[in-house]
Structure formats: structure tokens, C-alpha cells
């Protein structure tokens, strides 16, 4: 007998007490929890995102659409970056005002090469206000998972309010599980040493979020 059949057989015998007409999933799980916590205006939801991001030591910046290129250039400058990874589908105007060397996100490049790049600029799939979370789904303006992992400085641009959802339930219903998803809440951190929080172990030590107004 294969182990598959063995295990499934054990499971079935173990569940002999469960009636065949047991309550179906839809009725067995009552979802009396909230879709969103609190009743906020759209502007207040964006503010909450900014607060919760900052609370987790992300550096939060806000700007109008017309100022985005200057903001991004300023952040790369301030960080002293000489090079930046750029996802294939990133809006070219975001980097229009920086002189920093651009490194394209290409499948053939080694991780060691990526390790030598200073910064990465990406968009996101959406952001969750209640938890201060950015979600990347590998879309054209976000690139491969590794580009937001290996470089030490990540600048993530969030269009507000369009890309902001209030809560985790609202986020999941907008995401496609077939895509590889990375949820980011603040920079890499550890509390393994006497529970003292230290930012930056393996992921980027600096996470900067630019909330750009859409109009």
C-alpha cells in the first residue's frame, strides 16, 4: 500500500465518529468577525496606513504625483546609493530625476550581483492600513521576489488612496493566489536576543514608503 493510501485510510478510520452528513463548510464556519475595524474616511485610512508603517520603523514619505520623481531621487541621494534595481514594468517617470545607475531586474543575473546593488524601487499590489503592510505580487512594477530582498534599501511606492485597503480580509479578496505574494510590514527585524528588537537581519534594513496621491 502506498503511504498516501495508508495515511488517507488512517484519517478515514480516525473520523469514524463524524457523520456523513456533517455540517457543510459554509455553515460550519461562521464569519461574525469584521471586514474592517472602525469606521473611517478614506483619508483617515491612508493616515492609519502611514501611522502603522511608521510604527514598524518604515520611513514614510508623502507627495503629490507631480513630485514623485524628485522625491525618489532625493531618497536615493540621501541614502548615498550608487545603483538601483528597476523592475521591468516600473513607470519610467518615477526615476526621471535621478542619475543613479539603473540595474534591470533580469532572470539571468546572479544573486551575488544583486547583492552589490544599493537600492531597489518598486510599486506594490496593495497596502493594508490596519496592519501597516505592503503586498507585492510580482507584477510588472514589482519584479521578482528577490529584488526586494537582497538589496539593503527598498523604496516602495503606494498610490493613495487607490491601492490602500483597510484590512486583511479586504486585501485577500483582491489578491490572486496564483501569483507569488510577499507581505512586508516594516523592515526585516529580529527580537531573538533578549527580545530587543533589531532592524535588519536578512532583508532590507531600510524600508522607505512613498505614499503618492493619485490626482
Amino acid at each position, binding site marked *: 500500500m502506498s503511504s498516501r493510501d495508508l495515511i488517507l485510510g488512517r484519517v478515514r478510520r480516525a473520523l469514524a465518529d463524524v457523520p456523513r452528513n456533517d455540517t457543510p*463548510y459554509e455553515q*460550519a464556519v461562521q464569519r461574525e468577525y469584521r471586514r474592517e475595524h472602525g469606521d473611517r474616511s478614506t483619508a483617515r485610512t491612508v493616515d492609519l496606513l502611514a501611522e502603522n508603517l511608521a510604527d514598524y520603523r518604515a520611513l514614510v514619505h508623502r507627495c503629490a504625483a507631480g513630485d514623485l520623481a524628485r522625491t525618489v531621487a532625493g531618497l536615493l541621494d540621501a541614502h548615498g546609493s550608487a545603483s538601483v534595481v528597476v523592475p521591468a514594468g516600473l513607470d519610467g517617470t518615477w526615476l526621471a530625476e535621478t542619475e543613479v545607475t539603473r540595474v534591470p531586474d533580469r532572470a539571468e543575473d546572479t544573486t551575488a550581483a544583486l547583492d552589490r546593488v544599493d537600492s531597489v524601487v518598486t510599486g506594490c499590489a496593495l497596502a493594508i492600513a490596519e496592519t501597516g503592510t505592503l503586498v507585492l505580487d*510580482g507584477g510588472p512594477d514589482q519584479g521578482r521576489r528577490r529584488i526586494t*530582498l537582497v538589496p539593503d534599501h527598498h523604496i516602495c511606492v503606494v498610490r493613495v488612496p487607490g491601492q490602500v485597503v483597510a484590512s486583511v480580509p479586504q486585501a485577500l479578496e483582491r489578491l490572486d493566489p496564483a501569483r507569488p505574494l*510577499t507581505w512586508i510590514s516594516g523592515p526585516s527585524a529580529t527580537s531573538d536576543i533578549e527580545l530587543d528588537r533589531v532592524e535588519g537581519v536578512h532583508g532590507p534594513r531600510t524600508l522607505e514608503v512613498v505614499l503618492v496621491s493619485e490626482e
Partner: protein
Amino acid sequence: MSGTFVGMPAFPEAAREAVGNPTLRGNLRHATHTIRAKRAVAVSELDDWAALREAGKQIKDHTLRHLDRYLVQLEESVTAAGGVVHWAADADEANRIVVGLVRATGESEVVKVKSMATQEIGLNEALEAAGIHAYETDLAELIVQLGKDRPSHILVPAIHRNRGEIREIFAREMSEWGRPAPENLTDTPAELAEAARLHLREKFLRAKVGISGANFMVAETGTLMVVESEGNGRMCLTLPETLISVVGIEKTVPTWRDLEVFLQTLPRSSTAERMNPYTSMWTGTTDSGAADGPRTFHLVLVDNGRTDTLADEVGRQALRCIRCSACLNVCPVYERAGGHAYGSVYPGPIGAILSPQLRGTGSEIDASLPYASSLCGACYEVCPVAIDIPEVLVHLRERIAEGGQVTRQGNKAVLKPAKGHAAERAAMRAARWAFGHPGALRTGQRLASRTRRFHPRTLPGPGRAWSATRDLPAVPAEPFRDWWQRTRGGKDVPK
């Protein structure tokens, strides 16, 4: 069955040793109290916590009650997404499968993201025996691995080590495994974390094979999910060409939407954060055009005692556990005894009910574990999937003391009563230890009305002989531990 820490003394002896170690106790106390206080704040932010907890319980219960169906569906979804599913009835088989998969890649090194399941089956040792080096990449696991030590907490496995000890371990051991610790390494957490970053980065960048567990597997979509903080998980899940995930069958949930419950309750219960810094979700392999992440994905579904646990109608609720570790941090016995005393990768209250079910109660340590509790009920109160740990403890005690039907490796067996034998003696000592340390119990919340229903008409374990001849006193206001304190299970009748 592997996973037992070989040569472990039974809980009471192990606990007594830990209680006598002031450094350990200090580290533990600091840690559990800090996390406990933070967790309460994080949970209080959500005014629908009770509803989330109930939904989490219902999702897990429903899945467990139809686990055969959901496992088959999971297998189909993972396969359709380009993954390969393997089934392992026990630890040996799981290890054999993983060793075979790694060998097939031709590699002799793997990077690992922290996983309870791989610890449970002793995978690192099995790989080592096959000439494959497995590097733990979670900072705490690295500390444990370099220190040739055992984890002592689900969430913070090196909770028993302070910064001075960690510095010592890094300075002494890192060079044996790869990049040495920097000269003049101090004991500041930032410097220690930086040393780990440099040491491990070498390994991440050259790793061809990654091994992980998973917090959840979605039957509907074939999605696996790992939550973490440091980014080492992302490294292991993203950079290697081959990813092997070793996961207990109970980690299944039916639908994508179900994650909305656990992504709210797990981080807040475990690290007391609104959300952990990183969560990765992947569904099979990404199509080759995108070349994003591992090109080969294997999922090893592990039974190793889970179906036996499932067969116990009272005990099966332990399989709801999402390994948040909240119950450890509130447990007065864990706080004093430390994780090592439980002799298993699952310490604390959940370990006390899970290990003896996964492994059976054949050994003295497993037979003593259901007694490693004051039944104060605090673990149930904090559990985000509402596992009634005290209920299962009492059930297991009764089973050990009075015998009864159990399932072992899929077969029904009858457990003999442990009277006068090792288990009961262990139980006696455990109970005497726990209830002889009122300080260890005072911190627990008093839940008199709740504990009342845990008073069976005849007492299991040490009190059985006494209670067999008379009805238990009605105990409206007296928790079990107080009763024990007063009467020592009938040994010293109160004056």
C-alpha cells in the same frame, strides 16, 4: 518514533533541574512576561477578537473532520500548480524522502527556514547522516545550532540564552561553519544580528536547495504560507532552485479566504505584532517565463502520529494548534521549568498535550507530560483557536491512570492502567512538584468556574485511589490546584 530527546528524564526531574538554574529562570521570566504584556495590547486592538477566535476554531475543526477530502484536494491543487506531493507516514519515511530529493539535486548543503515539523522528525540529523549539511537560518535557530543546543520555545527557540552567552557561542563556533564572527564582537543585539547576517548571507547566495515548513496550506488553491520576521524565510523560499516543504497534514485549511482569520490572529498571538514583518505565499512554481523563485517544488505531507491524534475525539483538538506560542508565555509551569524540561520540540501547555498524543505515552517523559500543568486555564484563555488544553490534559491523565483505547500507527490498541508503574510515579512527582510550588501557580489566572468542569467524579492520576471511595467535594470556588495545595491529593488530610 523519533523526535524524542533521547535520554530525557521525565518532566519533574527535568523541571527541577531547570528551576535550580537562576540564569535560565531569569531569561525565561523576562521573555515570557514581556511577550505576554505586549500580546494583550495587540489583541485588544481588535474588538472582534472573540469572533475571529471562534472562526479560527471552526475552520480548523471542520478541516480536521474532513481531512481526507481536503488533503486530496490539496494534492490536486499543488500538482496542478507544478508542485510534486509526497506522503510520509512517519518520521523515518519523511526523512528518507527529503534525503532522496536533496541527493537527486547533487547538492550537499541546504538552507532551512525554521520549522517545527522538521525538528519533530529529526531531519537535520538524518541529513547529516547522509552527508548533507543543513543550515538553520533563523537567528534563534542559528544560536541553538551553533550552541549544539536544543530549542526551548516555539517562537523564540533561544529564549534561554542571554546576550553574553550568544556572543560567546558566535565567537567560538561561527568559524567552524563558515564565515567567522568579527573580531572584537560585543554583546549588543545589533552587532550580534549583524554577525549572523554576514555569516548566513554567504550561505543564502550560494544555496541551491531550501527546506521549509509552512504555517498554512490552502486546499482550494494549493497555496503555502510562511510567516517570519527576519527575511531568512524569504531567502530560503526565493533564492534556491529547489524548494522542499515538509508539513504536517493538520496545517491544511479549506479556502483562500480562511487565511484572513489566521493572518489576524497568528501574528498578534505570537509576536504581539499587528503583522509579522514578512509573509510569503506561493502556489506551486511560477511559470518558467517569469523565473521567479524555485523551479522545482516538493511538498512532503507528514503524518507521524497526527492520524492517531485525530482518532481521539477529545484529544484531536490539539491539531487545531497554529503554533503561536501564546500558551507558553502565560503558563506558570513553563515559566519555571523552561522548554527543555518537556523533552520535545513542542514545549509548554501545547507540548504537554501534543507530544504524548503524537508519540504515545510509552516513555516516562511522555507519560508525565499531562501532569506538567496546574490546570489554571490561562492557556485556554489565550489560545487563538480555543484549544481546551485543560480538558485534554485531564482526558490524557485519566487515560494514563485508568487505561483505555488508543490508536497507535493507525491500529487500535488498549492502554493498560499505569497503576504502580513508571507513569504514575512520574505523575505523582510531577504533581507534587507543581503543586508544591505555590509561587509557580499564583501567577496563573484563577478561573474557578471554568476549572470546575475539569473535576471528574473520580480523580485521575494520583488522586484516584482516594477519590474512588468518596465523591469529590463539590468545588464551586476551589480550583484544583488549591484543593491539591490543601490536601495533597488526600495524603495529608487538612486539619
